[in-house]
């Protein structure tokens, strides 16, 4: 009960501090035991898009490197339309701070019971912040089966900026 009350108070004090930046309110909030370093932001600028892929009787791969938006399409697949790497920006990280980027190795895409595996590659696994916004990209490689059924394949993947 006491804990709940404290929480409620903290919330109110924080709200007051935000509204007015009053010295009194700010001082009270500051009694919480937190190592205030900085705020950090994560924003998505572009969604990962592999464009349209035409299949054939031969299996193939569509690879989108982390270094450019130009796909590499193996024999067996034809690439149409345009592709975009996933593009994210980490902002506000304190200069000198090390931030890790976590992206899973692969994810499965599905369409009406058909599957494809998309392996994922981030352009960096960590960075040492310069204080300026840091952009990173997510590319990937899609394994397309022989006579892979047409359709729109959907899926998701996790991306996180991790603080140690």
């Amino acid at each position: 009960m006491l804990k709940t009350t404290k929480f409620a108070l903290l919330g109110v004090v924080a709200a007051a501090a935000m509204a007015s930046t009053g010295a009194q309110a700010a001082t009270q909030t500051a009694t919480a035991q937190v190592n205030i370093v900085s705020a950090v932001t994560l924003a998505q600028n572009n969604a990962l898009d592999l464009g349209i892929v035409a299949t054939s009787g031969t299996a193939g791969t569509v690879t989108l490197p982390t270094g450019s938006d130009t796909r590499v399409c193996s024999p067996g697949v034809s690439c149409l339309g345009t592709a975009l790497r996933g593009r994210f920006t980490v902002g506000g990280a304190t200069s000198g701070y090390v931030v890790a980027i976590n992206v899973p190795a692969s994810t499965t895409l599905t369409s009406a019971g058909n599957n494809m595996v998309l392996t994922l590659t981030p352009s960096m696994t960590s960075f040492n912040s310069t204080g300026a916004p840091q952009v990173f990209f997510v590319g990937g490689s899609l394994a397309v089966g022989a006579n892979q059924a047409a359709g729109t394949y959907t899926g998701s993947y996790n991306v996180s900026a991790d603080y140690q």
Partner: protein
Amino acid sequence: MFELLGKAWRLTALKRIILALLFPISLAIPLTPANAAGDLLIAPTRVILDGRRGTEVILNNIGDEEANYRITLELRRMNAQGRLEDVDLEKATDQEKYALDAIRYAPRRVTLPPNQPQSIRIGLQPNDGLPDGEYRAHMLFRAIPKAAPVDSAGAPTEGLKIQIIPIYGISIPVIVRKGNVTATAALANVRIGKDNEGPTLEFDMNRSGNRSLFGEIHVTKPGVSEPLHVSKGIAIYPEINQRVVSIPLSPELAAQVHGEIVISYYEAPEAGGGLISQVRTVLP
């Protein structure tokens, strides 16, 4: 006097956060043309609970649309490279389960209009039977993507199309310390290494004791007052006794790390900034 100084510092830090909350887009991401639904700001980036008092973390929607966010506690373990790896709940140790039980937080799901901050309150479930030690979980703040309608108009009749939704977020450690916890570290085996992005300056960090260490790595040259390089936010957690610290070498930095160099590990400034460990070496 010290008390006053402390307060002044904290006030400044808080003001900085408030500024960041008020002008997140203009200050933090001037290069970004438009923000997507689900973009987020988190402050602070590390939480330590060592008493009964709770604290809070600010989550702000910096996207240009209303967004739903989910806040979860995840288990991560540091590996020998210093990266945090996911841990399945079924494989959690007792120590990790204690952390999940001890850390209380609310709310766990919020809907925020653009530029609206929300404080996530974090507290401890009192447990006097808990052995002394350090307990840790990682709080993950994620935007829940809106279910994208399958774009049937654009569905190809022959080829196939991919719609892939990123679920993106920020994770920060939440550390619980109970009773008497201590740790020391030693640095050793400084060498030039290599990773996918190029040459690195590497060394081993050894830890002993029952808690984590956290601070800054300074690379200096004797007789040169400014550090050649500073890496902040470097931790070593109790689940490991040794990790590699790898510093990417830019061409400018690579040209300087020859001869005698000193690598120092300092506590973070807000924790006093004391020297934890230092190693002096000569590189070819």
